[in-house]
C-alpha cells in the first residue's frame, strides 16, 4: 500500500482549501475536498476518509450540527477549524464528538501534528492502554506497575493525580475538555472546575522541569488540557 491516509476537508473558503491541499499532498496524504456540509456528508459516506478537517462556519449547516450528525454513524476522527475567541464553539464541538481543533491561523506543523495524533488514536488506540509504558524524555509512566518516575527517580502521585495522568496519557496529543476530565477523574462533570486546575498544577510541579513553562501539560485556554506528544 503506497497511498497515504485520506483526509477530507470540508471548508467553504477556496484559499484555505488550496493551502490545505498543498500542505497535505506534499506530506503524502490523499486529499478530498467539500465546500458544503451536504457535499461533505456524501463524501464521508462514499469515500470513508481517515480524518475529517471541518470548518465550523459552513454555509449550509453549522459545523457543530454536522459533527453531531456524523457522530451518529461514523467514528472517523474529526478536527474542527475555528477562529480564536470562539472557545465556546470549540468546547461544544469537542463535547459533540469532535476529536480536536485547530485555531486559525495555524501553520503546517500544527496541522500535521493534529492529524497524526488523530490517526494514531484511530489506528492503534490500544497501544497507550493499560499495562503499557508511556515514556517522555523527562518522565515515564508504567501503568502495569502503577509507577511514575522522573529521570529514573520514582515520584509519588496521589490517586487523583495518577488518574488524571493516566487519562491524559491515554489521549496523548489530543485536547481534553474540562468537562470530560472532570467526568473521567472525579466521575462528576459538575465538580468544581478549579479541582482540575489545582491537580494539573500539582502534576506540573511534579513532572515538569519548569512548571511556569510547561512542556507536557499544556493548557488550551478556555477549552481544556492537552498532553503534548510526541
Amino acid at each position, binding site marked *: 500500500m503506497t497511498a497515504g491516509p485520506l483526509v477530507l476537508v470540508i471548508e467553504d473558503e477556496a484559499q484555505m482549501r488550496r493551502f490545505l491541499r498543498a500542505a497535505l499532498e506534499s506530506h503524502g496524504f490523499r486529499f478530498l475536498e467539500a465546500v458544503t456540509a451536504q457535499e461533505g456528508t456524501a463524501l464521508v459516506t462514499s469515500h470513508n476518509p481517515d480524518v475529517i478537517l471541518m470548518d465550523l462556519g459552513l454555509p449550509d449547516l453549522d459545523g457543530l450540527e454536522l459533527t453531531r450528525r456524523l457522530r451518529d454513524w461514523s467514528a472517523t476522527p474529526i478536527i474542527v477549524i475555528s477562529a480564536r*475567541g470562539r472557545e465556546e464553539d470549540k468546547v461544544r464541538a469537542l463535547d459533540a464528538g469532535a476529536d480536536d481543533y485547530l485555531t486559525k*491561523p495555524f*501553520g503546517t506543523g500544527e496541522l500535521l501534528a493534529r492529524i497524526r495524533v488523530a490517526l494514531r488514536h484511530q489506528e492503534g488506540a490500544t497501544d497507550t492502554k493499560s499495562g503499557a509504558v508511556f515514556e517522555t524524555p523527562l518522565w515515564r509512566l508504567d501503568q502495569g506497575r502503577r509507577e511514575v518516575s522522573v529521570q529514573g527517580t520514582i515520584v509519588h502521585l496521589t490517586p487523583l493525580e495518577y488518574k488524571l495522568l493516566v487519562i491524559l496519557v491515554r489521549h496523548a496529543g489530543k485536547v481534553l475538555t474540562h468537562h470530560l476530565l472532570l467526568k473521567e477523574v472525579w466521575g462528576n462533570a459538575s465538580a*468544581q472546575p*478549579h*479541582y482540575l486546575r489545582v491537580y494539573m*498544577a500539582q502534576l*506540573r510541579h511534579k513532572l515538569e522541569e519548569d512548571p*511556569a513553562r510547561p512542556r507536557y501539560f499544556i493548557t488550551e485556554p478556555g477549552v481544556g488540557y492537552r498532553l503534548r506528544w510526541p
Partner: protein
Amino acid sequence: MTPERPDPDALLRKVQDAEAREKRAKLKVFFGASPGVGKTYAMLSEAHERKAMGIDVVIGVVESHGRSETAALAEGFETVPACELPYRGIFMKEFDLEAAKQRRPHLILMDELAHTNVQGSRHDKRWQDVLELLDAGIDVFTTLNVQHLESLRDVVAQITGIVVRENVPDTVVERADEVELVDLPPEDLLQRLREGKVYVPDQARHAIDRFFRKGNLLALRELALRQTAQNVDAQMRRYMASEGIQKTWGAGDRLLVCVGPHELSVRLVRATRRLAATLGGSWVALYVETARHQRYTADDQARIEAHLRLAEQLGAETAVIEGGISIGPDILRFAQEHNITKIVVGKPARSRWREMLKGSLVDELIRGSGDIDVFVITGDRGEEASRPALAPRAREPWTTWLWAVLMVAAASGLGSLLFRPSELADIVMIYVLGIALVAARHGRRPSLLASALSVAAYDYLFIPPYHTFAVSDFRHIGTFGILMFTGWLIGTLTERIRQQARLARLREQRTAALLRLSKELAASAGSMELVESAIRSVAAQFHTEAAVLLPDANRRLTALRKAPAFTFTDQELGVAQWVFEHGEPGGRGTATLPGAKATYLPLRASGGIVGVMGVLPKGEAQWTEPDQRSLLEAFASQTALAVERLDLADRNEEARRRMDEEQLRTTLLSSVSHDLRTPLGAITGAASTLLEQAEAIPEATQRELFRSILDESKRMHRLVTNLLDITRLESGAVTVKKAWTPLEEVVGLALNRMEEALAGRQVNVDLPVELPLVPLDEVLMEQVLVNLLDNAVKHTSAGSPIEVRAWSTGSSVTLVVADGGPGLAEGDEERIFSKLVRGSRHGSEPGAGLGLAICRGIVEAHGGRIQAANRSQGGAQFLVTLPLEGPPPGLPAEYEEGAE
C-alpha cells in the same frame, strides 16, 4: 379715498390662518331655540348629502328619542359602538371617544353638544370630546339649543325660570366653522308637541310644560336668532378685517372683570363675556387677593376658584394678583399694565352709611380710572343675602384682654401717682400711651377695649365729681370722644400694618419656597436627583404626594419617581398620558377625567411639554385654592425648565461624546491602516519577488523572504486580534468567565505563546507556591500578559532580562511584569493606557497603541486595576492587581490508598 393698505404681517397671518383653517377639522353646529325644532333631523339630512358625495360619515351619538322619522334617517350610517361604564352599580352606555379616534372617519355626528358624560369618561362634557375629535382632525356635526350656551344662561333662566345645568362655553360655538340655525315658529313647535312629535321624558313632564309656553318659545327663538346673527356678524367682521376691507375697530378692546366670592361675580363674568363678544375684544378676569382671603371660608374660596374657571371657560384670561388693604389702586395698576380699556365691576347693594364710612371700590375706580371706562353692574337684594361670610377672626387669647385691663389700671395708677388731678392733659397722655401700647402689642380689638376702659377710668378717677361716672363739666365729653377716637385710630392703623406684614410674610414664604426649589433643582446632577428634589419640594410645600412622569423614547410616560402613596394604575397613567399629549391639566379637580385620583399638570418648558407632574392630595386638597394652585403651577414650570435644562445638557454631552468617538475612530482608522499596510507591503513584496524571480534568488535568500512573509502575517494577525479585542471590550461584547485559576497557569500560557518572541531572553519568573487561586478568565488574562510581555520585548534591548513576579495581600493578588529598559517618560504612567497612545519613548517598533488599552479593559472588566511605574533600578513595571473575592471553595480531602 384710498383703501387702507393691509399690513404685510397681517396678510401673512391671514394666509396662514386660512391654511390652518383649511387643514384643521371643521365643526358645524345645528343651532336651535328649543328641543323639538328638528336639529337632529337637519343634521342627519345633511350627513346623508355628505355621504352621497362619498365622504366617510359615521354616527358618534344620535338621539332619536323614539322618533321614527329621525331613526329612519339614522339608518345607513355606521355607528361607533358605545362603551359601557359602571355607574352606581349599573352600566351606562357612553360615547367611546377612543374608538371613534381609532376609527378615524372624515365626519362624525355628535348629537347634543351640551350632554354631560357618564362619570368615568375621559371628559366631563361632550363638547370636550368634540374638541378632541376636532384636534384629531375629524370633522364634527353637532346640535345645540340656545339655552345651553354659557353666556346666555342667566337670560334664559330669567325668561323661563328654569336653570339649565348643562352648559357649553361660547368659545366652542365660536370655534365652529358654520352655525346653522334650525328654526321652527313657536306655533308649529307647539303643534308638533301636541302631536307627540317632541320627545318629553315622563319625569320632566311638569317642567317641560312650563318650558313650552308660547312666551318662552318666542323669547328663546329671538335669542337664538340674535345669537346666530351675532355669529354671522362676527364672521363677517373677521372676513372684512382679514381682507383688509375696513378697519373695524381700534387697537381692540380689552375688558377686565373683577371677581370675588360674591354670587354677583357669575353675572359679572357672563356680562363681560357678552360685552367682549359684542365689542370683539379680549377679556381678563381678575381676582385681587388680600390678607382677608385667608379668612374666607372654604366655600367662598372654592367659589372664587369656580368664578375664575367659569371665566376661563368663557374664553377669558385669568389672573390673580395680591393686593393691599384697598384693592382699587391694585386693580387700576393691573389694568394699566395690561392695556385694559374697560373695567367691569359689581356693586353689591350696601347701605349708604356703610359706603360713606368705608368708601366704595366703584368710586375709587372711577376716580382713578383715567381713560379707562368703568362699567358698574349692580347686584340685587337676593344676592346681597349671600354676601360672603368671613370666617371668624382668630380669637385673641384672653390674656390680651387682661393686658388691656392691666394697662389701663397701670395708666390710672401712674396718672394718679405722677400728676395732680388738675393736670388732666398729662393724665390723658398717659392713657393714650397705654392704648397705643395695647394696640401695638395686641391689635385693634383689645385697643378698643383699652380705649373704653380708659375713658371710664379717666372719668371715674380724675373728672370731678371724683369716683362717680358723672361729668360736671360738659367739655370733658369732648375729651372722652377724642380719647375713644384716638384709640380706634391707633388700633386700626396697627391692624393694617399687621395685615400688610402678614401678607408680606406670606409672599415672602412663597418666594422663598420657589427660590428653594430652583436652588435645589439647579444643584441636581441627574434627572433622577432632580425629579426627586422636585417631588420632595412639592410634597413639603403642599402636603401632598407627588410624582413626576417623563416620557421615554417612544413618548410614552413612565413614572420616573413617585411618592410611596402614589400607585399608578393603567387608568392613572392614561390620564397622565393625555395631559402629556394635550398639554393641559387633567385628573382630579379639573374638567378632564376628573375621576382620576390625582391631578396632573403638564411640565411645560420652552421647547414644549417635557413631562407630567402628578399631585395626590393628602386629605384636604389644599392646592385647589387659587394661590396654592398658582404656586403649584409655578413649581411645575420650574421643574419643567430644570428637566429641560438637564435634557439639553444630556444631549450636549451625548453630542460631545459622539464627536470624541468620531475623532477616535478616525485616528484609529488612520493608525490601523498604516499598521496594516506595513506588513502587507512586506508580504506583497516578498511573495511577488519569490513568484517572479525564484530561479534568480539564492536559496538562503528565498528562505529569508518566506520567513518574512510568515513573520509579517503573524504581526498582522496580532494587530487584527487586538483590534477585535478592543472593539469587543468597548462594545461590552466581552463576558468575563471567571474561574479559580492558579496564576502559574496563566503565566505558563503567556510564556508559551510568546516563546518565539522571547527566544534568547532571560525571563525570571517568581511565583510563590503559597499564592492563592485567583478568580479570572484565563483567555482574557493570557492576552493581558502576552501584551505586557510583548511590550517588554519591544521596548527593551535584546539582552535585558524580564521579570514576572506576584504576591498576595489576602484580598488581592498583584502580578508584575518588569523590564530593564529605558522606563517610562514622565507623565506617561497613566496616558499609555489610553487607546491609540504610545509611550513617548517608543522606538521605531510598529504598533497601534492598543495593547495597553486592551490590558486595562480586561483588567477593569475583572474588577481589578492596572498601573505602570518606573522601577528604582531602572526600567518599567506594570502591576496588575486582581481582587480575590473571598477564598475559593475548598478541595475535598483526598484519601490515598494505603496511606501511611
